[in-house]
């Protein structure tokens, strides 16, 4: 996950990832895919249909598999949570909340990833990006 452009203050709880395609491929896909101005929907210019490589979306659906995985995570818990007993007044509330939550179960949560992600496509260093930045003439003329 960590690439050269990922930084943060020492000890900071916040990990910083620069833009410019410097993150992981998953970051790039999540950032740019299906975003931006859609041209063909609004103007009758000569938009050419080109072949876009299939970007395989790995759909993470909150399914039985997800639930079983969460239950497995419970198996891995190293510490048995304290205070789970002797709070009978909480039981009603908690059970109620869980039932209410059923209404939203089964909503698919999609995570998109390109299959066959290759790390070396993301190797580009920062200096290269600096060079490739378009200049703005107005700034230079000042």
């Amino acid at each position: 996950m960590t690439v050269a452009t990922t930084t943060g203050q020492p000890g900071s709880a916040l990990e910083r990832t620069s833009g410019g395609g410097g993150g992981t491929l998953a970051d790039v896909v999540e950032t740019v895919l299906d975003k931006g101005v859609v041209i063909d929907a609004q103007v009758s210019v000569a938009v050419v249909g080109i072949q876009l490589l299939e970007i395989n979306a790995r759909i993470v659906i909150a399914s039985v598999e997800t639930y079983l995985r969460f239950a497995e995570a419970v198996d891995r818990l190293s510490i048995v949570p304290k205070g789970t007993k002797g709070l009978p007044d909480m039981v009603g509330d908690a059970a109620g909340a869980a039932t209410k939550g059923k209404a939203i179960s089964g909503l698919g949560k999609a995570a998109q990833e390109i299959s066959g992600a290759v790390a070396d496509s993301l190797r580009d260093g920062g200096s290269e990006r600096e060079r490739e930045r378009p200049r703005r003439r107005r700034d230079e003329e000042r």
Partner: protein
Amino acid sequence: MAQENGLFIYGIVPSDVEPTPEAEGVGSPPGEVIAIRHGELAALVSEVGLEEPLGRPADLTAYERLLDGTAVVAPVLPVRFGTVVTGEDAVEDLLAAHHDRFAAALDEVEDRLQYTVHGRFDEQEFISGFLAENASAAALADEVRGRPEIESREQRIRLGEMISQAVELRREAENRDLIDSVGRYAVADAALPPSHELDAVRVSFLVEGDDEDAFVQAVEDFAEHRRDLIRMRLIGPLAPYDFVSAHQLVE
């Protein structure tokens, strides 16, 4: 030539923006990025072969690199990845047809950059916290823990579903809290759909240049308060991908 090549459009910028000769576009070998101007606008484009499929990781990275690199020096409206037109005339027609609307949209993102805050729950932390607060889930956890799946499948599914729902509810709350905490340093925010089942927050912000430091500090503080529970990341500065939706430009 005209039949075999098209122009890939990256984004729309003010007409005084000029790509550097080294700017690399999509395709293999990468196309040279040029600006096609009309009035106050320019489109950043590069030539692509129409037979060549696009969408390799390197294409997506080149696209983002060009747009993000541009965004830090000039306003830019990203155009959806994969938009290819027949040639320069088509680009000029496009700019002419929507000149004022694009120009107005560029004014809106002038000196503004996108930052995306993306957080993911630490699974163990989240689940322990959930079990500590939810007695019925904790009771289920006691039933299944250490028992083979085949014997406890039904309870496992029920427990996992409760956890999954708790994640969703908590995610909504965290997204709201984040916007409440740092939104004052942004001119716009956009909550994004989760990209992972343990996603805790995922919100993009459009931030004014002068407010960047205060914004980043506010996100740092938000992250610090959740240090053990959420692995928090700040991605950016980025071109304003999440703030140039099609409907804003459609008549």
